[in-house]
């Protein structure tokens, strides 16, 4: 036997390593949660009403639509893709369903179904283009962003859906709730939990991560890449559709460009939530937290009586802070890990 023969090196003590590594991974979520807590705490101290029943309810109501979109986006981003068209889809769906329910009162269930259908269809188109034609996701979805927006405008012809035209039953979906808990956050949380659990606990769920982590390895491992990517887009579209309906329910008055420009908002929520834009890493819980954080920042600045002109600047600043802190934390943990292995090494 001619090659160097001997016992393998004493490797890092697995348990400690495993635990620490889990922590590093979860740290992303944790750090966001921390930021959120601090933000809320400070605000609440300055202005207790912020944590009044109404205040809390508002935060969650505001966040839930963004959370839905973020969950869908996460699914896509994890597979190393991106969906910029969600904003347009929300607008299109909100308006068309609005058009549908307005006038002689139509069934809300039907409206929701239509919304979901339209969303799913948009997702399907994106998905087919990306997964089967193998064209870069960013370009395609930037394209469909324009197209879907255009279609929305075309249908709207400058008209508007007014709260008066929307059946009360649908409006209640936006503001009502069951035993104190409003519907919107309820739906958002349910969706998040469902998707999150699926991604974690099911083999097919793990394959989304595999694809994003290394498409090449995924193919060699026989992962059905196209099908999974397609699914990701359809789900994202579906949730965008749902978001559109809820948007209508929540705001009552809707114009064609509702949620215009939200694509960046959603993506930042996802990124702040610790989902790696290059795929393979992150969780819907993180993304949801990111969405919650972003919306909270929005409300907090008003509540803290920040000068209107400073609000955008500060939002941006806090956003950068969030991701930077998160990053620094990760680096820190890596260093700790290395030091640790040192103590095992020698």
């Amino acid at each position, binding site marked *: 036997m001619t090659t160097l023969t001997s016992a*393998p090196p004493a*490797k890092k003590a*697995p348990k400690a390593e495993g635990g620490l590594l889990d922590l590093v991974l979860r740290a992303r979520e944790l750090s966001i949660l921390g930021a959120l807590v601090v933000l809320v705490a400070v605000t609440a101290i300055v202005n207790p009403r912020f944590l009044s029943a109404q205040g809390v309810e508002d935060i969650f109501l505001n966040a839930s639509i963004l959370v839905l979109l973020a969950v869908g986006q996460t699914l896509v981003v994890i597979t190393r893709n991106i969906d910029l068209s969600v904003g347009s889809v929300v607008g299109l769906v909100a308006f068309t369903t609005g058009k549908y329910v307005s006038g002689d009162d139509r069934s809300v269930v039907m409206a929701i179904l239509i919304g979901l259908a339209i969303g799913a269809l948009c997702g399907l188109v994106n998905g087919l283009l990306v997964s089967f034609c193998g064209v870069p996701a960013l370009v395609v979805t930037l394209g469909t962003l324009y197209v879907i927006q255009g279609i929305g405008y075309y249908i709207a012809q400058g008209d508007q859906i007014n709260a008066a035209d929307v059946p009360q039953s649908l409006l209640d979906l936006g503001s009502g709730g069951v035993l104190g808990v409003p519907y919107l956050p309820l739906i958002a949380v349910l969706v998040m939990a469902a998707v999150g659990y699926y991604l974690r606990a099911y083999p097919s769920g793990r394959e989304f991560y595999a694809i994003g*982590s290394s498409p090449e390895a995924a193919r060699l491992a026989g992962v059905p890449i196209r099908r999974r990517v397609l699914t990701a887009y359809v789900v994202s579209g579906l949730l965008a559709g749902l978001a559109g309906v809820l948007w209508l329910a929540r705001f009552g008055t809707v114009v064609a460009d509702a949620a215009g420009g939200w694509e960046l908002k959603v993506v930042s929520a996802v990124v702040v939530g610790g989902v790696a834009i290059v795929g*393979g890493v992150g969780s819907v819980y993180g993304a949801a937290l990111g969405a919650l954080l972003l919306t909270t920042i929005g409300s907090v600045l008003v509540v803290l009586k920040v000068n209107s002109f400073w609000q955008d600047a500060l939002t941006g600043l806090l956003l950068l802070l969030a991701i930077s802190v998160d990053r620094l934390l990760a680096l820190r943990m890596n260093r700790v890990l290395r030091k640790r292995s040192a103590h095992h090494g020698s």
Partner: protein
Amino acid sequence: MSGPTPVLALVDVSKSFGAVRALKGVRLELYAGEVHALAGENGAGKSTLVKTFAGVHRPDGGRILLGGEPVVFNSPADAQSAGVAVIYQEPTLFPDLSVAENIFMGRQPRGALGRIDRSAMHAKAAGLFERLGVPMDPRRPARGLSIADQQVVEIAKAISRDAKVLIMDEPTAALTGQETARLFSVVEALREQGCALLFISHRLEEIFELCQRVTTLRDGQWIASETLEGLTPDDLVTRMVGRELDELYPKQDVEPGEVALKVSRLTREGVFTDVSFEVRRGEIVALAGLVGAGRSEVARAIFGIDRRDAGSVEVDGRPLKAASPTGAMAAGLALVPEDRRQQGLVMEMSIERNMGLTRLRALSRGPLISRAAERANAADWAVRLQLKYARAGDAVGVLSGGNQQKVVLAKWLATEPSVLIVDEPTRGIDVGTKAEVHRLLSELAAGGLAVLMISSDLPEVIGMADRVLVMHEGRITAEIPREQATEESVMSAATGRYGKEAA
């Protein structure tokens, strides 16, 4: 031939990539309970053949027979469901996922409601590493694993499939003897269970130790399939190379000149500690040790890839400042890294541009790059290293493993360094080329170059080195002069048993 039908067979299979004809009417038969070796130079077509079995490539001509029945593998998935497991030459893992998930992706043990049973999965993975005699934490993410550890995971993945056919493309290229030995015992076991195996390696002695039959390819052509009994290594080499082979390790004795590289008390916390040594002009100094001993890390720190926590590096007497490869290159250092896919080459870039990347300034006329100079540079080195390629404009990624390694060497030798650090220079290189590389190295040394060679290939270490530095768990545990360097002495130092200043 009569007798049992082969489990899996190729009949007159051809495959070309554009201009390159990788396989020309090759035939190969794998029988149950037999380990079949596939031998051939770099670029002979071995990996292509493997990928044809694996369903990655579809042959242009010829057929694949599964148990005598013709089959068509449209995708790796098809091949897997047909009971073919493959260890590819280049490990391809999911860096973000845990080692266990890497092994069981898509086949995770299920619990209630089809949910993944994680504890079962980790237990199984641990079991596999037990069999392979490698302690690795199944929960650890694959990112940051050494090539060797990555290869181990690939092996675990393959054997976990309990396939009818197991195909291994240079599984041992990155392994140390210990791990190789364990792999072989596992392979033996599988063979006795009636599994059909295909084994590829550039280490002939491994082929002779493990296999019963051998098929040789040359330039994509089928040369011979025969039993190994009565065959000598030289016969095999002649079949592969088509000529008598000149001697390995042609180390010329040179009078070492002044100190070119001086490393003192170099430390990087958690990886290596207090590493000091010198390399003189004309010397080849080998850095031996076990996987994870920290050899590559030392090289990286010297070259300025990683920050060093303490210690200093001097090149030609001038101290090398803070971590920066650019600075190191300017000082006359060159590093041929251990992982050619990630670190050695820009896979999507053309061969000539990869070779030019290290000397953009030299290839420029004024502010602009001279394509002519770039081409000339590439052509020149392609000849000197006998590179096997179609067009210099092709992506380097399409070259065979060994030929890729040659490109990496070329791109660094082209910088005409005064100190050359090579990390596993002959990993995955065929015997012929290996000899060339060795001759090249000793020529360069003779020409006054100082060479620091990291290698896990012990004969190479003994054969080539003027001095052998042995690392153990991040420390240099011994310095052995050429005449005292034997497998035993190096081994004992590498395992920390020997040694004056051991940790």
